[in-house]
């Protein structure tokens, strides 16, 4: 309890809210790293997943890849990349992209694959092009599952982005590593609380977005036939 009060006092200290390395700067860095990583991973993973789900081609390869990528320990990968790329943001960004891709890929591919085959076949038979089937039928119907992947990936990245501070001067992880080095546990706990707060905020926002998409995909309360969220067993390393 005492430590919590100390952390609260640390957070309340006005000196920690201005200047370089202050709380607002670290929060912004953390959000910026998260956005960059999830954005970059989505650009790669979502089109790939949609393509696989639509054509059914490369399914085995994608499942194998996603499974293997999920088993990679982020801290180990970060160390390896750090030795190769040196100090800076490059290594953590890359390591975090590897963390985010499997969730996004699985969400996109299982979402599109779960769309009822008779619906897409009917859309084709009445004269939709393949592109129109993807954009007007599969994406709207798969959106809840795809957003489930985005939600899982975002949360993993927010939590794990603390590792960026391991070899770069960025993000809320700085408070954790600084606190650890100087045995300033109040600072560590304050940093951890901030990460938790951001994670919860995004969880609430993305869950709401997912519910919205689900309502659009199944208006008028049709029964859901697909899981609203793919299961991602791996936690932040």
């Amino acid at each position: 309890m005492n430590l919590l009060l100390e952390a609260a006092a640390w957070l309340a200290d006005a000196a920690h809210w201005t200047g370089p390395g202050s709380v607002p700067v670290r929060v912004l860095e953390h959000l910026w790293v998260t956005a960059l990583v999830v954005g970059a991973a989505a650009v790669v993973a979502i089109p790939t997943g949609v393509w696989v789900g639509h054509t059914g081609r490369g399914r085995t390869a994608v499942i194998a890849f996603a499974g293997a990528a999920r088993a990679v320990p982020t801290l180990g990968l970060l160390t390896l990349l750090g030795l190769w790329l040196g100090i800076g943001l490059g290594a953590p960004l890359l390591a975090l992209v590897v963390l985010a891709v499997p969730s996004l890929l699985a969400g996109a591919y299982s979402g599109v694959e779960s769309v009822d085959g008779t619906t897409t076949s009917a859309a084709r038979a009445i004269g939709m092009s393949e592109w129109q089937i993807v954009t007007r039928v599969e994406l709207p119907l798969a959106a809840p599952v795809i957003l489930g992947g985005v939600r899982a990936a975002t949360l993993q990245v927010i939590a794990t982005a603390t590792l960026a501070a391991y070899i770069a001067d960025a993000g809320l992880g700085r408070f954790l590593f600084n606190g650890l080095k100087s045995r300033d546990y109040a600072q560590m706990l304050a940093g951890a609380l901030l990460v938790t707060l951001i994670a919860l905020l995004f969880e609430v926002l993305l869950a709401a977005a997912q519910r919205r998409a689900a309502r659009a995909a199944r208006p008028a309360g049709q029964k859901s036939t697909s899981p609203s969220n793919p299961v991602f067993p791996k936690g932040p390393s």
Partner: protein
Amino acid sequence: MIEFCGVGKTYAGGTVAVEDFSYTVQANSLVVLVGSSGSGKTTLLRMVNRMVEPTAGSVLIDGRDVAGLDRVRLRRSIGYVLQAGGLLPHRTIADNVATVPVLNGTRRREARSAVVGLLERVGLDPSCAERYPSQLSGGQQQRVGVARALAADPDILLMDEPFGAVDPIVRRELQDELRRLQRELGKTILLVTHDIDEAFRVGDEVVVLKERGVTAQVGTPADILAHPADAFVRSFVGADRAERRLRTTDVDGRRVLVDDDGRPAGVLVAAEERRTAP
């Protein structure tokens, strides 16, 4: 007019869906392909809008080989109705019906304004336009499917087991309405079913298929009932079934038709008391 010229379909694994099929669907007629599963009837239907590409022979529409036409444009020019409607669950009835005109470049508002007329045409209350498919019954969804197929005013309608998913009473109602629509609109309709009673009820001409698209008999329903070509057709149409074999008996001066089991099937009327078509 749709011409099947020696079409066949063999799948990559060596499975033969259709061996060799030739037939011409005359313009403005309603032709039914009837057969059990494995007869290749759906494969034949789907060759017309290139959902299936024949591995032998060709399909001609008004003399033009469909293989030379753009697939997407061909499909938009042909109405397609399938079992359970095949509607888009995330779109309203109005948007579903307006799908093809919108794909063809008609403005959405304009296309939607035509929806009311189309829904009335297929016997639906236009107030359902803003509802979603899941809020409608199976029979209503099927009608929406027909309205969607008619929206771009195609010359040809393809119907794949269109009434398979609805109960017998609604099924019969929809069959009668299909006849009415055919009379009113004069489309060329090719319908596929496994139900011989449905084939006889709606078809101007019926093609009875054996396995792999082999034609067992072609003719009007009356022809086929009167002169089944062989034992296969005979058993398929149930020519020997009690309810197909009627005779008359005299009941208080009226001639009553009874089937082979003695169950009454109707009364025989003289030509002058025939009900005039509504």
